[in-house]
């Protein structure tokens, strides 16, 4: 892993993630920046953090910012990351709120958003391809992957229901056995 990020690094990096996610795809952008570009975390640690941040209450991406911030710089780190993630988007959303409630519409960006949203879906799908290549090796991980996709994506079961069935199996499978490497 590279050097420990400073508070400014954390704020700027999460700001970059937030602004890049125009049209959606915030999780995929987080991985793109935190794992690929900055090399702050490895895929396995990052992915498990993503799911823990989903289980815990709160907005997933805000939670992830807290998690990454605390990991490197404790509470100040969490504050820096959350400020970075939310300050500029907050100002943008506030401006949009002003326009919306004043003029009952938002400046014409609809077409741009349509295109960007299609690309944001693509970024999310490519995250599946890239992370899947590394961790979907063997029968059991592939079955876990398919099962939770069918339950949560197709059948739309609530996250907690899916996890209470599959997480124990996943942890049992992942439990280290034999000699330490």
């Amino acid at each position, binding site marked *: 892993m590279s050097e420990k990020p400073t508070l400014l690094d954390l704020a700027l990096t999460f700001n970059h993630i937030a602004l890049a996610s125009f049209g959606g795809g915030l999780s995929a952008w987080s991985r793109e920046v935190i794992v690929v570009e900055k090399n702050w975390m490895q895929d*396995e640690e990052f992915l498990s953090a993503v799911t823990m941040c989903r289980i815990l209450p709160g907005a997933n991406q805000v939670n992830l910012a807290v998690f990454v911030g605390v990991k490197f710089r404790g509470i100040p780190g969490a504050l820096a990351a959350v400020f970075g993630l939310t300050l500029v988007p907050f100002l943008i959303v506030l401006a949009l709120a002003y326009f919306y409630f004043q003029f009952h519409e938002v400046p014409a960006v609809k077409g741009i958003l349509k295109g960007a949203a299609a690309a944001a879906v693509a970024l999310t799908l490519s995250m599946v391809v890239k992370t899947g290549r590394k961790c979907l090796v063997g029968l059991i991980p592939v079955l876990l992957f398919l099962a939770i996709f069918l339950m949560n994506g197709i059948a739309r079961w609530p996250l907690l229901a899916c996890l209470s069935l599959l997480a124990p199996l996943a942890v049992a499978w992942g439990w280290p056995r034999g000699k330490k490497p």
Partner: protein
Amino acid sequence: MNAKTLVQILLLFSSLSILSIGGGNTVLPEMHIKAVGDHHWLTDKQFADVFAISQAAPGPSILIVTMIGYKAGIGATGNELFGVLGAILATIAMMVPAGLLVYLVSRVWEHAKNSPARKAIEKGFAPLTVGLILASGWVMSKAADHDWHAFLLTGVCTAIFSATKINPLFIVAAAGLIGWLGWV
């Protein structure tokens, strides 16, 4: 804005913060009941519109509470400064309680660095997370890809993102341009 609205904003969003297990979207129905039905801060149509705006705007989509807080703050007075105050309060109230919980959990997590439980969770949760990401891509696609043009754009972009190292920002910007030209 009067003190009562201020307290209502703080109470509503800090309680939703703790209730939002699984992410901000899980408390949207409750948020709708309280903000539209009980407090009459916005109309049904306005709630649907601010939802769409917060989804599309950069940053976490939970910033829908910023817009609701803004409208609640303006409320009876019509003063935009109170709107800004309401927006700030709603946003902080929505993030702090859940954030504290994540802080506590991540401290425990750091302490457990070398425990077999943490290793098992990291290894075991990886395939589950990839499945959940595919599920959200699937759900996003249903909302974003209305016709075969958009599907094609998503397909081409997925191939580019997966197979090349081009900065994704260029691709998203190009896709935005394609949308602006009216091709999707």
